[in-house]
């Protein structure tokens, strides 16, 4: 087989468990521990689990199988990213070319995502060291802790950190150092390759993350009521806040949109990274069970571990009213302002603080490496770049494009990237994937592709779901987001005039990255490293 011969020159995963851990590491990120509990608490508590599981079954799991299938198929033709893999799904030369150019999104979106994600990830690394050294110890109210965070980010000035804080830009020295270290670790892992780099990282980071999370969950469960004078501030009330159902919420659109967004975010769907990881599999390797295993591992981490740490402990120490305010302030407020105060009230607080932030760092780095992998695969497979050189190129892009994120954080640069790349872009890319796979490639062949080498029988209902329900669900999401958030964000409604040039800057950055990817795909066509792999069988 010509395609099999080709695939032999590509890297492969060393073990199945390594692949599951790497894929789980891709999915498990900061969102599992910070975003999920906040979303659940704000959107109906236990009742949030109804739209959450509906989104998991109708969006998450079908799209996960779609992306695994496209990736494994692409890998057989020596394609490790959507630019190339998409073309193998088309039935004509023109269709293949269009599909491959659409694949530019599968490189530009994850790298845009990785640019700001790396910066957030670097905060967790920094806070790990602050926990060990006790740098934030002594700051006991949330406002002061927020000031500490903002001065670390360069948004405000304080005695805690040196740096330049100005109206136009900020140069936070400490944050920049940790950002540079984080990018360097990413580059180092990528330069080591699939088995020696990504798989080895997952085999170290994932078990460590689980152990730290389980220790923290046990600590939370044994807290009970920390202050007997305030019996309402208890862990059980925290669980009540998170799980008691408010059915009036789920009759509204908001929790359904939040649940769908959370499923996208948590399973890393629509980033193209699953596709790249799956491209390093063999033709007959199972994707049905392996894919499901990574999804349930992610759900275990999110719902059981992630849901049992931050919110319950916040209610136990701050009480319900203040925890609601913390949750309304968002995930960073919970993770970087509330949790450091709690650790100071616990015996061995420095150790628990370090465990919390190292856990978040491991969750982050396994995801950021995955986000860089589509670009890495494209540079290696289509531009024939050596692995180390490709990793350095990606590091340079992350650093150069990351500097505006660091310097203009206070102007909303990161939030703008997050909406267009990390929210809207994911849904658009997932939509392209499912339409190409189910409708262009054809559902009959698509179904055979999913079941090729499968270790479990995929229920036939998913054939119908993938073909009809998932695309309709995605269209609904795009319309709702477009109307609710997209148009106001597009028009920059209510934005301070001083921030508008920076928001445009973020948009130009994403568009620029897409254009560069399109030009590189054109170059790959010219070079002959992307072919028209059209099959009719």
């Amino acid at each position, binding site marked *: 087989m010509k395609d099999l011969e080709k695939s032999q020159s590509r890297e492969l995963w060393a073990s199945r468990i390594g692949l599951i851990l790497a894929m789980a590491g891709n999915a498990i990120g900061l969102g599992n521990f910070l975003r999920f509990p906040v979303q659940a608490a704000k959107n109906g*508590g236990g009742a949030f*689990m109804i739209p959450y*599981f509906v989104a998991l079954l109708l969006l998450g799991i079908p799209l996960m199988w779609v992306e695994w299938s496209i990736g494994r198929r692409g890998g057989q033709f020596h394609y490790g990213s959507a630019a190339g893999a998409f073309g193998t799904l088309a039935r004509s030369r023109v269709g293949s070319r269009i599909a491959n150019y659409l694949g530019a999104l599968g490189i530009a979106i994850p790298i845009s995502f990785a640019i700001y994600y790396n910066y957030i990830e670097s905060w967790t690394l920094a806070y790990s060291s602050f926990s060990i050294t006790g740098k934030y110890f002594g700051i006991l109210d949330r406002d002061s802790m927020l000031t500490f965070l903002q001065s670390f980010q360069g948004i405000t000035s304080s005695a805690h950190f040196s740096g330049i804080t100005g109206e136009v830009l900020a140069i936070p020295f400490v944050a920049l150092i940790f950002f540079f270290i984080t990018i360097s670790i990413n580059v180092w892992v990528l330069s080591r390759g699939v088995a020696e780099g990504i798989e080895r990282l997952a085999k170290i980071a994932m078990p460590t993350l689980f152990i730290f999370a389980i220790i923290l969950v046990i600590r939370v469960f044994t807290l009970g009521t920390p202050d007997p004078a305030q019996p309402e501030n208890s862990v059980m*009330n925290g*669980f009540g806040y998170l799980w*008691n159902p408010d059915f009036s919420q789920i009759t509204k659109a908001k929790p359904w949109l939040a649940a769908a967004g959370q499923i996208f975010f948590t399973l890393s769907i629509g980033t193209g990274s699953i596709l790249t990881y799956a491209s390093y599999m063999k033709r007959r390797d199972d994707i049905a069970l392996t894919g*499901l*295993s990574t999804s*349930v591992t992610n759900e275990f981490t999110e719902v059981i571990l992630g849901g049992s740490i931050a919110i319950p402990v916040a209610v136990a120490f701050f009480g319900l009213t203040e925890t609601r305010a913390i949750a309304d302030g968002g995930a960073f407020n919970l993770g970087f302002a509330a949790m450091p105060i709690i650790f100071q009230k616990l015996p061995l607080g420095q150790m628990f603080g370090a465990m919390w932030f190292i856990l978040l760092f491991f969750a982050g780095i396994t995801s950021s490496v995955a986000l860089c992998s589509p670009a890495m695969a494209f540079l290696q497979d289509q531009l024939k770049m050596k692995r180390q050189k490709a990793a350095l190129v990606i590091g340079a892009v992350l650093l150069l494009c990351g500097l505006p994120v660091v310097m203009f954080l206070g102007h909303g640069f990161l939030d703008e990237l997050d909406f267009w790349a990390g929210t809207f872009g994911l849904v658009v890319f997932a939509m392209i994937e499912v339409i190409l796979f189910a409708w262009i490639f054809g559902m009959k062949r698509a179904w055979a592709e999913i079941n090729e080498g499968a*270790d479990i029988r995929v229920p036939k209902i998913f054939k119908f779901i993938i073909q009809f329900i998932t695309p309709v669900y995605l269209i609904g999401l795009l319309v709702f987001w477009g109307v609710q958030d997209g148009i106001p964000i597009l028009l920059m409604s209510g934005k301070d005039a001083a921030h508008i040039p920076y928001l445009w800057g973020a948009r130009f950055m994403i568009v620029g990255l897409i254009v560069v990817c399109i030009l590189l795909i054109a170059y790959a066509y010219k070079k002959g490293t992307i072919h028209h792999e059209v099959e009719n069988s």
Partner: protein
Amino acid sequence: MNQFGLNAGGWIFLIAAWGAILYFTFYCFYKVLFGKKNAEQSSEK
């Protein structure tokens, strides 16, 4: 409302969600680690 703990609905949702996730986690990893294909690969070695 200062106190509510976990009410009956809360317990039901918590147990149902945790139960479903734990069931599928054990099911998947059992199949991955001790499934037919894995056993065949081990015997080949």
